[in-house]
């Protein structure tokens, strides 16, 4: 659905996006992850034909952004970082205007307005002036605007920025529910968002592509080995965590055991194994046979946060001027 090859955006003094290439399949939700100023917004603006790339190509929904921008625009819905609302319009008037400039009219337009109002849950405010809406509703109207013409591709620039936790959850659920009909690219610098919403992650830093992978693979990749959290409980009263540690270390395949938490009669241990060695069954048996209770056994997947910090960490501290140029980034 989206094919990007060597996409580059250069400004007079700095390079905001530097030879980025990736592909997105139909129906996927892809997270575009990077620190502030990494070039996320610039890349999205190029995909939506707002900015022309300096070099390289991007094919969105089957059309090249430079050759046939109008065809691309017809098939892309875009929610910029701040929802592009006209404060003097009501939500319905606004959606009708956007629908019209996206090429809808008549009965189809009315039907689409009703649909997006229901889908984005803005029926309560549809006759209110946009200038008077709360941040959460503004964001939802922004989303409604992006999907009004039923685009193949949805580009969402930090869709949850500035919302409260409840609104963030609602927005995430909404985006997830849209994934079936649309291919979605969303940018964020909030990591749990990617873990919860996306299937695929593209990490960029300082305009360069750092990695592109599925969320699951990335989480696995964080540790070369599998790692399991085990909570062990004592039968009667005290539990000797040192004994537990000793016992678990003897399980075949285990490479390392660390006591994470120690209480009166239960302890949590993190057990690591070599890659590809199944140890959970042996672990459970060892605990039970030693006369302890096995309260919990779950995999301790590394959070994306660690991976992210790992991947975007600078190898060598850059000298001042370079840092400044990169820091200005592209997002403004």
């Amino acid at each position, binding site marked *: 659905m989206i094919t990007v090859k060597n996409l580059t955006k250069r*400004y007079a003094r700095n390079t905001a996006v530097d030879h980025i290439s990736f592909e997105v399949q139909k129906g996927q939700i892809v997270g575009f992850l990077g620190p502030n100023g990494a070039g996320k917004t610039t890349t999205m*603006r190029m995909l*939506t*034909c*707002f*900015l*022309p790339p300096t070099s390289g190509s991007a094919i969105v929904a089957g059309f090249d952004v430079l050759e046939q921008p*109008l*065809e691309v*625009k*017809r098939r*892309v819905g*875009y929610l*910029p*970082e*701040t929802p*592009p*609302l*006209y*404060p*003097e*319009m009501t939500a319905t*008037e606004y959606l009708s*205007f*956007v629908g*019209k*400039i*996206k*090429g809808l009219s008549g009965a189809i337009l009315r039907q689409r307005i009703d649909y997006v109002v229901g889908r984005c849950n803005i029926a309560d405010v549809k006759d209110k002036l946009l200038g008077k809406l709360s941040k959460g509703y503004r964001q939802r109207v922004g989303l409604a*605007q992006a999907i009004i013409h039923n685009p193949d591709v949805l580009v969402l620039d930090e869709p949850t920025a500035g919302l409260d936790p409840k609104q963030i959850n609602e927005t995430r659920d909404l985006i997830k529910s849209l994934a079936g009909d649309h291919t979605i690219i969303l940018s964020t610098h909030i990591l749990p968002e990617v873990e919860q919403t996306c299937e695929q992650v593209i990490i960029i830093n300082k305009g360069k592509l750092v990695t592109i992978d599925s969320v699951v693979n990335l989480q696995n990749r964080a540790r070369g080995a599998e790692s399991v959290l085990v909570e062990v409980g004592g039968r009667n009263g005290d539990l000797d965590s040192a004994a537990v540690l000793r016992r678990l270390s003897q399980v075949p395949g285990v490479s390392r055991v660390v006591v994470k938490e120690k209480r009166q009669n239960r302890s949590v241990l993190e057990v690591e194994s070599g890659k590809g060695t199944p140890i959970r069954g042996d672990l459970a048996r060892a605990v039970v046979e030693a006369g302890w209770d096995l309260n919990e056994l779950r995999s301790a997947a590394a959070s994306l946060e660690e991976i992210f910090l790992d991947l975007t960490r600078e190898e060598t501290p850059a000298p001042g001027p370079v840092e400044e140029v990169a820091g200005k980034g592209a997002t403004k």
Partner: protein
Amino acid sequence: MRNIWIICRKELRGYFVSPVAYLLLAMFAFIFGFFFWNALAYFVLAGMESQLSGQPMPMNVNEEIIRPIFSNIGVLGLFIIPVITMRLFAEEKRTGTIELLATSPITDVEVIVGKWLAAVMLYGSMLLLSAINLMFLFHYGDPDWKPIAIGYIGLLLQAGALLAVGTFISTLTRNQIIAGAATFGVCLLLWVLDWVSGYESAPWAKVLAYMSVITHFDSFAKGVVDSKDLIFYVSLTFLGLFFTARSMESLRWRS
């Protein structure tokens, strides 16, 4: 065509849901009324003096009342045009809605022409309002309607050209005040350029005088359509809109 109309209607809505349009209409109607009243009073006075002198001269309503009013209205436009155009693009740039327009399947030209057309229509509605005053002339006197119509067409052409210049200036900034002030400055300059013809007859002075928007209005005020003046206004309009389009494009390459 359809897209131009959609943009135009949106802009007109923008003018009329805010107090801007009403304020401008009221101001224009009031000041035009004052001009009209003054011109009429002078006319009546001159008529009485002419009667008392014993040798009455024929007096022309078109020449004595309407022509000076039209010239004055041109000056009034100078103040009103920056107010009309200052928000057109500056506001879209400030609120970020320009991104919506630029990523929708409409061309820059459609956006620009739609906005300019809305500005022209707002100015046109002011002129329409002013025509009410002239109705009295038809009731009590016998003016020729053709020069009046041509005068109005001239005013609209002149405003169209200056509105195009204002539209262009509005794309240069995200601050409405700056856009308005700069447009006022440029309009004023285009107004007074012909002063140089008063003391200088070198070619450069002729060029400057030719660029003045006011000299080209004289023929319209007289009720004459001079193709030279028509071409001037139309080409200035195109130039302004062309620069607007270039400015929009450069916005994309730079921003």
